[in-house]
C-alpha cells in the first residue's frame, strides 16, 4: 500500500478528536466526523465543538494552534463523501460491535479501494468487528489502539487480523512510527491487549492491597509511585487524575472478557469496602480532579487552602499526612531492598509487584510473544519507568521464582524458563532478549532509529568527564552527550563542549549533540553561580560566563557541521547550545526557551545574541528593527518556553532547514543524517554584524515593561531585569547607523549578567528556584 497521505477519524469524542489532532500535528490532513445530534443547528457541531475545545485544552492536544486548520470537520450524514480520498479511516466511536459494524458497512460504500480501516477499540475482539463484512473488508481492517492523551502517550497498540493485508498493516505501523512518533507495539487479539490488560490488573491490585494491608493513600502512593518506577502521582493520585468513575467501567468490561481463571477475578469484589467507598465517592460527585475531589482534594478551611486525603476506612477527608514509611527510603537501594523491607510499605510493594510480575509473565505468549513489547507497552502506555520484565531482572528471576515458591504460590512457566538467566542481556556490543523458547534473540538496531545506548553498548567514550561524554556514533560522526543531574550544565559540560569543537582533530567530520535522557538540558547550574555570588567571587563568576561564551562560539565556529538534537526540556544554557549549532533536529516534544530571567539573570552564553540575530535576519518579518527585537525581547524577558518544536520555530529558535522528528527514537538518527548531509562543502558561518537601534529601543522596551508593571503583569524587579535584557538586545549604546558585532553583543551580555548576579533580588530568585523548584516573583 502506498503512503498514508490523508486520514479520517470517525468519532469526535476525547479519543477520536485527540487522535485527529495528533495526526494534524504530523502535518497530515484529517477529516473528523461525528453524528448529527437531534435538533442541532450546526449539523457538525460535535466535531466543530471538539476542535474548538481542543484549542483551549491544557496540556494542548495540538503542537501548534495552526494545526487545527488541517482538521476538516463534518458529520456522518452529509460528509461521508469526504472519506473517498482518505488512505486510513480510524474509527473511535462507542464500544458497541453492532454500531461499529453498521458504520463499517457505510464506510465500505465510500472509501477508496485499498484504504485501511482501523478501530480504536480497547475491548472488542477484531474478528467480532469484521464479522459479516466480507473478506475484502477484513483484509483492509486492523486495530489501532491509542492511549489518552494521544499526543503525549507514546504507545500505539496494533492488532493484525488473520486476513489483514501485510502491506496495509505495514503502512499503518510505519505511519504510526515515523509520522505520529509512536512506540508501535504488536499485540495479539486478546482483551485489553497489553497495556490495559496489565495496567487494569495492576491498579486493581494496588488499590485493593493498600486497603487490605492498612496503608493510607499517602503511604500507598509513596510506594506505588517513584519507588516502583511509576509516576509520582502514585496509584490513588492517578485515579484522581484519570477520573475515579472510569475505574468501575473498565474493570467491568475487562472482567467480562478475560478468561475464567484470570487472576483479575481474585481482586474484583463488589462487596469489598474499598469498592463500596469508591461507589459512594462517585455517587456523591467525588470523581477526582474533574469532580469535587478524589482520594485527595484541596479545600478551604478558615480561608486557607489545605490539602486533604480520604481515610480509606472511614471515608472521611482529613489533613494530608506525609508518608513516613522507611521502605520508601530503602527503595533507593533498589527494588529488592524495597520488597524485602519488613514494614507495611515493603509488604505492600511485594504484594503488588509479585502479583503484577507473575501476571505479566503468565500472559506471555497469550498476549504477546515478545517480552520487550510488553515492557515497551507498560513504559509508553502507563509511563512506567521499567517494564515488568525489566523489573524481574532487577529483582532477579531466580530470587523471584524462589520467593513465590516459598510462599506456596505458582511460579509462571516463563519465570521458570528464565531461571539462571536474565530477560535482557548484553554481550559483545549487542543486546539480546530472552524468547519464550528460552533462547536469546538479538534486539536489532535499525539504521534510522536508535538510541545513544545502542551506540554506546560495549564501547568506551572518546572522551568523558563527570558531566558529559563524547561518543563515536559511526560514519565519522561524534555525539556529545550531557549526563549530569537533569543535564544541567557546569564547568565539566563546558569543557566537553570545548573538546567537542575540536573533534575534527580526532578524525570526525560532524558532531551531533543529544542523549537518551528525558531532557536535553535544563540549563546552566545556577547553584554554582549562587555559591560564587554569596562568596563575592565575582571574577570567578565572570570567568565562568566568559568561558561559556567562548565554548559556544567555538561550537558555532567549529570547522565541521554541528547538529543539536534536543528532546524534552532545552532551557537556558541548554537552549543556547542549540542556538549555537549549525542546525537543530528537534524531537517534536521539545520545550525550548531562554528562561534566565526566572532566576533574575539574562542569557549570558550568547542566547541574547543569537535570538537577536535570528529575529533580525528573519526575512519574513518586515518593517524595521523593532518587530524583530520585540519578538526576541518578549521571548527572553518573559522567559517564554515553546511547548513544542513547532512553537520553537515561531520563536526563531528553530530556523528554516531545521528539522523535527516525531519519534523520540529517530531524533539522533535524523540528526546524524542531517549532519552528514552538511559535511560536503561545509563552511563555518560568517561572523554576523547587525544594525541595532541602541538606547531608543531600550527605552521603548522599558516603557512597555513599566506599563505591564502598572497593570500588575510584571513585578518591580521584572522591570529591572528586563531593562538589562533590553539593553543587550538593543545593542547597548550603539546607533542604528552603526554595526554591532557578535563580540560586542557577547560583551553586553556579560556586562548585563554581571550586573544582575550582584543584585540581592537575583540571588533570592536563584535560591528560591533551587529550593522550591519554581520561579520567585519578587
Amino acid at each position, binding site marked *: 500500500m502506498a503512503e498514508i497521505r490523508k486520514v479520517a477519524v470517525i468519532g469526535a469524542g476525547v479519543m477520536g478528536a485527540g487522535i485527529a489532532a495528533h495526526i494534524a500535528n504530523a502535518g497530515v490532513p484529517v477529516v473528523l466526523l461525528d453524528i448529527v445530534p437531534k435538533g442541532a443547528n450546526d449539523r457538525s457541531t460535535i466535531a466543530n465543538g471538539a476542535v474548538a475545545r481542543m484549542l483551549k485544552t491544557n496540556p494542548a492536544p495540538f503542537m501548534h494552534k495552526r494545526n487545527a486548520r488541517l482538521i476538516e470537520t463534518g458529520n456522518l450524514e452529509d460528509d461521508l463523501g469526504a472519506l473517498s480520498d482518505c488512505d486510513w479511516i480510524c474509527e473511535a466511536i462507542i464500544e458497541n460491535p453492532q454500531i461499529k459494524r453498521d458504520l463499517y458497512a457505510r464506510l465500505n460504500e465510500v472509501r477508496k479501494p485499498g484504504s485501511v480501516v482501523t478501530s480504536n477499540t480497547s475491548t472488542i475482539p477484531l474478528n467480532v468487528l469484521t464479522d459479516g463484512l466480507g473478506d475484502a473488508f477484513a483484509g483492509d481492517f486492523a486495530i489501532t489502539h491509542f492511549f489518552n492523551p494521544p499526543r503525549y502517550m507514546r504507545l500505539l497498540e496494533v492488532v493484525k487480523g488473520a486476513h489483514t493485508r501485510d502491506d496495509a498493516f505495514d503502512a499503518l505501523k510505519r505511519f504510526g512510527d515515523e509520522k505520529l512518533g509512536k512506540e508501535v507495539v504488536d499485540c495479539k487479539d486478546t482483551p485489553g491487549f497489553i497495556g490495559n490488560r496489565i495496567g487494569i490488573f495492576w491498579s486493581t491490585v494496588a488499590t485493593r492491597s493498600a486497603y487490605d494491608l492498612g496503608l493510607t493513600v499517602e503511604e500507598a502512593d509513596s510506594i506505588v509511585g517513584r519507588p516502583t518506577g511509576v509516576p509520582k502521582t502514585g496509584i490513588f493520585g492517578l485515579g484522581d487524575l484519570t477520573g475515579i468513575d472510569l475505574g468501575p467501567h473498565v474493570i467491568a468490561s475487562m472482567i467480562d472478557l478475560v478468561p475464567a481463571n484470570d487472576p483479575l477475578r481474585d481482586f474484583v469484589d463488589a462487596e469489598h469496602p474499598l469498592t463500596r467507598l469508591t461507589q459512594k465517592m462517585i455517587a456523591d460527585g467525588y470523581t477526582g480532579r474533574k469532580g469535587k475531589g478524589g482520594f485527595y482534594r484541596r479545600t478551604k478551611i478558615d480561608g486557607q487552602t489545605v490539602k486533604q486525603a480520604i481515610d480509606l476506612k472511614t471515608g472521611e477527608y482529613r489533613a494530608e499526612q506525609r508518608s513516613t514509611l522507611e521502605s520508601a527510603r530503602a527503595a533507593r537501594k533498589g527494588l529488592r531492598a524495597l520488597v524485602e523491607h519488613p514494614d507495611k510499605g515493603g509488604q505492600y510493594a511485594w504484594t503488588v509487584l509479585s502479583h503484577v510480575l507473575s501476571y505479566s509473565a503468565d500472559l506471555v505468549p497469550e498476549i504477546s510473544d515478545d517480552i520487550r513489547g510488553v515492557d515497551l507497552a507498560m513504559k509508553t502506555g502507563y509511563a512506567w519507568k521499567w517494564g515488568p520484565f525489566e523489573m524481574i531482572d532487577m529483582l532477579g528471576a531466580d530470587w523471584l521464582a524462589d520467593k513465590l515458591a516459598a510462599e506456596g504460590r505458582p511460579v509462571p512457566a516463563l519465570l521458570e524458563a528464565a531461571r539462571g538467566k536474565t530477560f535482557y542481556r548484553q554481550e559483545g556490543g549487542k543486546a539480546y532478549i530472552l524468547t519464550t523458547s528460552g533462547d536469546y534473540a538479538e534486539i536489532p538496531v535499525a539504521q534510522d532509529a536508535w538510541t545513544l545506548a545502542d551506540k554506546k553498548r560495549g564501547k568506551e567514550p572518546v572522551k568523558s568527564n563527570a558531566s558529559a561524554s563524547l561518543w563515536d556514533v559511526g560514519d565519522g560522526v561524534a555525539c556529545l552527550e550531557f549526563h549530569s543531574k537533569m543535564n544541567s550544565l557546569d564547568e565539566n559540560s563546558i569543557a566537553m563542549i570545548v573538546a567537542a569543537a575540536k573533534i575534527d582533530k580526532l578524525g570526525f567530520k560532524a558532531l551531533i549533540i543529544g542523549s537518551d535522557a528525558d531532557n536535553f538540558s535544563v540549563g546552566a547550574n545556577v547553584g554554582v553561580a549562587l555559591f560564587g555570588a554569596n562568596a563575592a567571587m565575582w571574577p570567578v563568576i565572570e570567568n565562568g560566563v566568559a568561558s561559556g561564551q567562548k565554548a559556544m562560539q567555538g561550537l558555532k565556529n567549529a570547522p565541521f557541521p554541528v547538529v543539536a538534537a534536543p528532546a524534552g526540556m532545552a532551557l537556558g544554557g541548554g537552549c543556547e547550545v542549540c542556538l549555537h549549532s549549525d542546525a537543530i533536529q528537534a524531537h517534536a516534544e521539545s520545550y525550548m526557551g531562554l528562561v534566565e530571567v526566572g532566576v533574575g539573570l539574562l542569557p549570558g552564553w550568547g542566547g541574547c545574541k543569537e535570538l537577536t540575530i535570528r529575529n533580525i535576519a528573519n526575512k519574513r518579518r518586515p*518593517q*524595521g*528593527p*523593532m*518587530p524583530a527585537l520585540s519578538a526576541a525581547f518578549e521571548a527572553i524577558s518573559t522567559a517564554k518556553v515553546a511547548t513544542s518544536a513547532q512553537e520553537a520555530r515561531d520563536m526563531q529558535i528553530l530556523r528554516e532547514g531545521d528539522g523535527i522528528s516525531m519519534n523520540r527514537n529517530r531524533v539522533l538518527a535524523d540528526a546524524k543524517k542531517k549532519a552528514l548531509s552538511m559535511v560536503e562543502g561545509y563552511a563555518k558561518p560568517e561572523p554576523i554584524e547587525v544594525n541595532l*537601534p541602541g*538606547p*531608543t*529601543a*531600550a*527605552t*521603548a522596551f*522599558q*516603557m512597555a515593561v513599566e*506599563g505591564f508593571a*502598572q*497593570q*500588575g503583569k510584571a513585578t518591580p524587579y521584572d522591570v529591572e531585569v528586563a531593562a538589562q535584557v533590553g539593553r543587550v538586545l538593543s545593542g547597548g549604546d550603539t546607533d542604528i547607523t552603526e554595526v554591532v558585532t557578535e563580540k560586542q553583543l557577547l560583551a553586553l551580555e556579560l556586562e548585563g549578567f554581571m550586573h544582575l548576579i550582584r543584585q540581592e533580588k537575583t540571588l533570592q530568585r536563584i535560591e528560591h528556584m533551587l529550593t522550591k523548584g519554581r520561579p520567585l516573583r519578587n
Partner: protein
Amino acid sequence: MTNVVIAGYQRSPFTFAYKGALAKVRPDEMTAQVVKALVAKTGVEAADLEDLIVGCAFPEGEQGLNVARLIAFLAELPQTIAGTTVNRFCGSSMTSIHMAAGAIAMGAGRAFICAGIESMSRVPMAGFNPAPHPGLYQRYPEAYVGMGITAENLAKKYDISRADQEAVAVESHARAAKAQAEGKLSDEIVPIVDGNIRVEQDGCIRPGTTGDDLSGLKPAFDQAGSVTAGTSSPLTDGASAVLVCSEEYADAHGLEKLARIRSVAVAGCAPEIMGIGPVPATEKALKRAGLTVADLDIIELNEAFSAQALAVMKETGITFDNTNIDGGALALGHPLGATGARITGKAAALLKREGKGLALATQCIGGGQGIATVLEAC
C-alpha cells in the same frame, strides 16, 4: 472673511480592530471608498476640489507614504487635486478641517475633502518601530505617557468613581444602539466592499450593555485603578470624510449645507492628563465665537475614556444630556485619525437633523492637547 461650511459627511462602519469585519481591509482602500461616496452623495464637482487633506495618527505601513495622494488615486479624483496627510494623533482629521477652513478663509481654494483614516488592526498604535528619545523619556517621561494612565490620572484628580465611568459607557452604548436600530446612523455610513468582504454596519456597539456587565472587568492599565476596557474606547478600524467649502461655493452649486464653521481652536495641556485637552480648546473656540457653553445645543465630545469625558464635563459645565446623543466613541469606536472628521461631521449633521442652532465638536489628543470646532446652523 469668507464663510466656511460643511457640506457633506460620510464615514465607513466602525468595527473592532483585529476581530472586526474591517480588519482585513486596507485603510487606504477603505478611506478611498468613503471619499468616493462623499463626492457622489454631495454632488460636488470633483474638479473643483483644491486638496484632499487626510488625518492619520500613525502614518506608516499601509497608511504611510503620502497616503492622501494615494487615496485620491484610489478614489479616482482628478489628477489636478492635491493631497496631504496630517498628523495630530486623535485630532488629525479635525485638524484637516481646520486647515481647509483656514485656506478657504484666505482665498486659497473653494472646496476641500477633509478625511480621516485609521486601521488599528493593520498599523499598530505606537507604530511598527517605536523609537522614543531616551533623554526626553528620562527627563520628562510624561511626554510618552500611555493613554490609559492619563485616564486613571483624571479619574483620581476629579474623583470620578468607577461606577460613574461605567454609567457613561452604559448610556453611550444605549444611545448608539438606539440610533442604530432607528436607522439614524445609516445616512452617514458608506458600506465598504473589498473582494468578498462587505461591511455595512457598525461593529463595536454592544446593545444591552449593563453596569453589571462592566463591573466585573479587571482594570486595564493600572491594577489599582478604575479604568477598564469597558470604560475605554475600543481599538477600531474606520475612515471618515467631510466636504468643506466656502458658503458661496456651496450656494452657487446648490450643495446641501449642514453647518457653518463659527470658530476653531487648539490648545496644549499637561500630557499626563491629556484627556482634559478639550477644556482649554473649547474655552478658546467659544471665546472666539463670543459664546458660552450654555449657548450650545449639540455637543460631540469624543469619549476616548469615560473618565476623561466626565472630567471635561465637570470642568466645562457641559451636560451629558445634549452630548453625543447618538452615542460616542465608547460605543461606536475610536479609529484615531478618523474620529475628528466623524464628530465634526456628526455635529454638523445633527444641527441640521435636530433643527438646532449651535454645536461644538471637541476631543482630547495624546501628548496633551485639545481641539475644538464651533458650528452654527446655516
